[in-house]
């Protein structure tokens, strides 16, 4: 590569690794996990091959949405430290290649889901991809600080898709799981956007800390954490999950609330002093893994 100069890089075909990077594999792991848990929590057991295919389709659908997001946001990504090394802003791939890859992968994932499981699950998968691309990425993200609130629904679909793949319908439990991730998304992203605020400000993205300031964002984090913790516990009193899940959801929700409270009382404006925000962001990922893991463990152990 040393002999290949930077200007020549644009003329080169992208490497396969860049196409993988386009799918945001790290984000995909949480999507796959919640989709798998939604499927395992369902009362109907899928054939292992069909279950694997359904999860593969959820992963590919998420990858397609991520690729289309990077296609549309290449200009923003180039302005932010966190995203400047992505394949398009770094000049390793053309926008056209990302668009073609994203559309192709999205169509493939939906058709394969329909063929392997059922067309209801395929339709929900299609809606989730289209919602993420058109509603969140194209419509909301650059226009309103509520971008992550409404757009967060896109990330809430996987457990619903997993459940739909197994049962062919949507029920109360997957809808509650949808609500849980929907309410979890704002505190998760606002905690992050508090300590990378300057990145968003430089790129002109109207994230809440940029538009309303750190104080209002911290209050909003707390306001969303409360119903989120309640939605997390709700399946237990409603008889949709057992006491093991109830105890885990209660403990995890309480920890989330305590960390949100520490964020609320923090007055720091510099990222270096935003330890509570960083802790909440890291814990929020653990929270989602924990609560979905508890749901599956509860069903497996207690039936």
């Amino acid at each position, binding site marked *: 590569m040393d002999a290949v100069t930077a200007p020549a890089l644009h003329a*080169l*075909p992208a*490497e*396969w690794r860049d196409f993988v990077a386009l799918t945001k594999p790290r984000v995909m792991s949480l999507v796959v996990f919640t989709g798998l848990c939604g499927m395992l929590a369902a009362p109907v057991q899928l*054939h292992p091959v069909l279950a694997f295919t359904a999860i593969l389709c959820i992963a590919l659908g998420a990858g397609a949405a991520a690729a289309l997001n990077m296609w549309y946001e290449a200009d923003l990504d180039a302005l932010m430290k966190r995203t400047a090394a992505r394949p398009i802003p770094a000049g390793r791939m053309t926008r056209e290649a990302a668009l073609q890859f994203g559309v192709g992968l999205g169509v493939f994932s939906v058709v394969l889901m329909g063929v392997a499981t059922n067309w209801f699950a395929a339709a929900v998968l299609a809606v989730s991809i289209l919602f993420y691309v058109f509603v969140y990425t194209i419509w909301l993200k650059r226009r309103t600080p509520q971008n992550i609130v409404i757009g967060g629904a896109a990330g809430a679909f996987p457990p619903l898709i997993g459940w739909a793949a197994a049962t062919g319908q949507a029920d109360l439990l997957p809808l509650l799981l949808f609500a849980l991730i929907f309410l979890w998304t704002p505190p998760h992203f606002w905690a992050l956007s508090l300590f990378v605020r300057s990145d968003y400000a430089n790129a002109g993205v109207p994230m809440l800390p940029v538009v309303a300031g750190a104080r209002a964002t911290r209050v909003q984090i707390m306001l969303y954490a409360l119903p989120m913790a309640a939605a997390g516990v709700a399946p237990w009193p409603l008889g949709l999950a057992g006491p093991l899940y109830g105890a885990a959801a209660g403990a995890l929700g309480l920890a989330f609330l305590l960390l949100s409270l520490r964020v609320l009382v923090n007055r720091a404006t510099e990222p270096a002093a935003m330890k509570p925000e960083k802790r909440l962001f890291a814990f929020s990922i653990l929270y989602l893994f924990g609560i979905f893991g508890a749901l599956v463990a509860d069903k497996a152990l207690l039936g």
Partner: protein
Amino acid sequence: MIPNDPVTEEIRRRQRGRAVVMALALGAFVILLYLITIARVGGQG
């Protein structure tokens, strides 16, 4: 024999890498489609 310039070499290396990955993905897809058919037919039997 004229040696290729570094850019041409790099293009070929990348095309080769993409072709290999594409071939593996297509092979995996064919096997998966076969297994899906078996699973679905078995489920109806």
